[in-house]
C-alpha cells in the first residue's frame, strides 16, 4: 500500500505542474485576443477618460505577467477590484470576474456545473455498463449473430452525429409519443424523480453514442485477453467459464477501458456543448458558448481552464485507478 500512496503523491505533483503551465498558456492565448473587455464595459459613448478608468478598475492597465499573477493569486486568496463603495469582491477561489454578467466566474461555473455533471455522470454510468457488457458479449460470441449485432450497433453509434440522434429522440419520444419532457432541468435536490425524468433522453442519446467506442474497445481487448496463457491456466485450474471471463479476463480489459472512460468523462464534464444545446439545458457548454458570443474573456478563460482542470483531474484519477487495477504499475 505505501507504494500506492507514494505513486499517488508523485502523480498529484505532476498534475499540479501541468495545471500551472496550462493556465499560463490559456491566459496568454485569450488575452492576446484583440477584444478589449474594458472597451465593452465602458459602454457608448466611451470617452478616453472613462476607458482608462475602466481599465484601471479591471486591472487591465497592468502588465500581462502581473495580470496573470493577479489571476493566480485570486485563485488562492480571492481578489478585489476597485475600492471603497464601488469595490467588487471575488472570493477565493476566484477564477476571474465577469463584468458583463457582474458575477465571479467561479459562481457562474458552480451554478452551471450541476446541470452538466448530471448529464455527464448519468450518461457515463449508462454507456460504461452498456459498452462493456455488449463488448464482452460480442467477444464471447465472436463471429456469431450477437457479435455482428453488437459490432453493427457500435458502427452506427460512432457514425451518427450527436445532435442528429438527440433531435430524433426529442422528436419521437418527446413530441410524437409524448413520453418524456423535451427540455428543461429540475435540480436533484428538488425532485430526484423529475431530475432523472428530464435527463433520461440526453442520457440515453449520449450513452448510445459513447457506448460505441466502448463496445469496440472491450470486444477487441477481450478477444486478445482470452488468448493469453493465464486464461488457459485459469481453465486448467478448474475455473468455470464465467469465472474465467469475469475474474481473469475482465481485469485486463478494464485497464484500457478505464483510461478511455476517464478522458471521455473529463471532457464531457467540461461542457456537453451540443447535447446542452439540443436539450436546451444551461450547463457549462452553454455558458461557454454565450461567453464567446459576448466576448466575455474572463468567463471564456475561466471555463476553459476549468475544463482543462477536469481533464487533468480525470487523467490523475485514471492513473490512480491504473495503479490499483494493475500491480505492475504501482508495484514497479
Amino acid at each position: 500500500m505505501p507504494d500506492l500512496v507514494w505513486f499517488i503523491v508523485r502523480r498529484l505533483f505532476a498534475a499540479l505542474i501541468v495545471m500551472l503551465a496550462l493556465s499560463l498558456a490559456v491566459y496568454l492565448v485569450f488575452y492576446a485576443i484583440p477584444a478589449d473587455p474594458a472597451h465593452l464595459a465602458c459602454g457608448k459613448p466611451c470617452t478616453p477618460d472613462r476607458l482608462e478608468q475602466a481599465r484601471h478598475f479591471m486591472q487591465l492597465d497592468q502588465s500581462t505577467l502581473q495580470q496573470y499573477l493577479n489571476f493566480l493569486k485570486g485563485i488562492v486568496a480571492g481578489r478585489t477590484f476597485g475600492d471603497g463603495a464601488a469595490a467588487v469582491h471575488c472570493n477565493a477561489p476566484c477564477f476571474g470576474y465577469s463584468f458583463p454578467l457582474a458575477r465571479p466566474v467561479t459562481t457562474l461555473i458552480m451554478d452551471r456545473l450541476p446541470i452538466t455533471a448530471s448529464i455527464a455522470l448519468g450518461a457515463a454510468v449508462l454507456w460504461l455498463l452498456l459498452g462493456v457488457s455488449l463488448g464482452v458479449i460480442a467477444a464471447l460470441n465472436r463471429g456469431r449473430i450477437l457479435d455482428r449485432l453488437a459490432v453493427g450497433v457500435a458502427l452506427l453509434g460512432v457514425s451518427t452525429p450527436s445532435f442528429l440522434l438527440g433531435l430524433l429522440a426529442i422528436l419521437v419520444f418527446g413530441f410524437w409519443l409524448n413520453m418524456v419532457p423535451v427540455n428543461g432541468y429540475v435540480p436533484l435536490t428538488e425532485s430526484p424523480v423529475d431530475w432523472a425524468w428530464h435527463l433520461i433522453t440526453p442520457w440515453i442519446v449520449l450513452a448510445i453514442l459513447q457506448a460505441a467506442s466502448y463496445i469496440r474497445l472491450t470486444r477487441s481487448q477481450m478477444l486478445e485477453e482470452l488468448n493469453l496463457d493465464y486464461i488457459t491456466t485459469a481453465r486448467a485450474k478448474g475455473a468455470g467459464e464465467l469465472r474465467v471471463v469475469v475474474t481473469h479476463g475482465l481485469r485486463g480489459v478494464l485497464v484500457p477501458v478505464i483510461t478511455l472512460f476517464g478522458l471521455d468523462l473529463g471532457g464531457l464534464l467540461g461542457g456537453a456543448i451540443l447535447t446542452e444545446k439540443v436539450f436546451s439545458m444551461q450547463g457549462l457548454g452553454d455558458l461557454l458558448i454565450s461567453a464567446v458570443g459576448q466576448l466575455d474573456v474572463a468567463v471564456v478563460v475561466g471555463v476553459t481552464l476549468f475544463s482543462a482542470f477536469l481533464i487533468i483531474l480525470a487523467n490523475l484519477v485514471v492513473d490512480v485507478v491504473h495503479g490499483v487495477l494493475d500491480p505492475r504499475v504501482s508495484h514497479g
Partner: protein
Amino acid sequence: MAEPVLEVHDLHVTFSTEGGLVPAVDGIDFAVAPGETLAIVGESGSGKSVSSAAVMGLLPSNADVTGEVLLDGRELIGLPNDELRKIRGNDIAMVFQDALSALNPYYSVGWQVAEAYRLHHDVSKKKAHQRAIEMLDKVGIPDAARRADGYPHEFSGGMRQRVVIAMALVNDPRVLIADEPTTALDVTVQAQIMQLLEDVQAEFGTAMVLISHDLGVVAEVADDVLVMYAGRAAERGTVRDLFYRAAHPYSLGLLGAMPRVDVPPKLRLTTIPGSPPTPGSITTGCAFQPRCAYTDRVGERCITERPELTPRPGEGDHEAACHLGRRPSDV
C-alpha cells in the same frame, strides 16, 4: 508397471482450420502409473502440447478429439464441461512452460494458489490462503507468508515456476502434466525445478507426464518415454529401452542431437537434417522417410506402407514404428 492412473488410447486430434483439416495428433497411446513419470519427447510441432491439452479437455472448439482418455478407468472424452471442470486442477493439474505468462499479473501469487484450492474445496478464503502459504513454503519459496502477497512480476523466473508448481499441486492431483516446465529457465534453476518436481512427486505419489525437449532431463527423471513424430508415436518403451536400445531412426537422431558433456565437441549436436512435415502432409508411408538415413536399407515400403508400432527387444513393452526389423545400429 503398476495399475495406471491415466491411460490414453488411440487419441486423435484434428483441427478444422481455414486451410483444411489438420491432424495434429494421429493415434497415440500412453499410460502412466502413480509415482511414475512418462516423458513425451519430439521436435517442435509433433503434437505433444496438443495431446496434453486433449487430456485436460482444454482444446479450442475447432478441435475434434476421438479415442479414449481414462482417468482411473473413467472416460473423460465427451464429458460435459461441468464434469471436466471438477477434474481439471483437482485430479489432473498442469505446469506450463512460461510461468510469467501462465500467472495472472493482476492477482497476488497467494491469491492465485488459494483460488486453485477454493475451486475444489468449500473453504473460507482465509483457510485457502493458509493452505496457499503452506504450499508456497513446500515448493521452496522463502518467507512464504509474506511473499504470498507479492505479484508475479516481483518474482524471479525460478520462483515463479515454483508458484505455478504450488498452484498445480495444491489439490494433491493424481496426475501432473508438465509441459516443458524448465525451458524458460537458466540451467542451474532448471536443475532445481526438476529436483523439486521429483521430490513432490515422490512425496505425493503423483503420476507425471513430462513433456520435454531435453533428453538429459528425460534420462534422469523418466521411467517411460514416448517419442512422437508428426502426431504419431515413433517409439515407446522404458527410459533404458530408448537410451540403450533405440529402435527408431528418429529416436537415434534425437539422441545424436542431445548435447552431451562426455562426447568430444566435434561429435556433439548432430541435429537431424531437414525439418518435420506439417501435420497431414504425408499420408502414405513413413512420415520420417524424407529425413531418414536408413530408408535405403528398407526401400519401397517406407514410401508405400505406413509403419505401425511393433514389439522390439527390451524391457516390457518396447515398441517402434519402423520397417527396419533390426536395430539401426546393428544394420
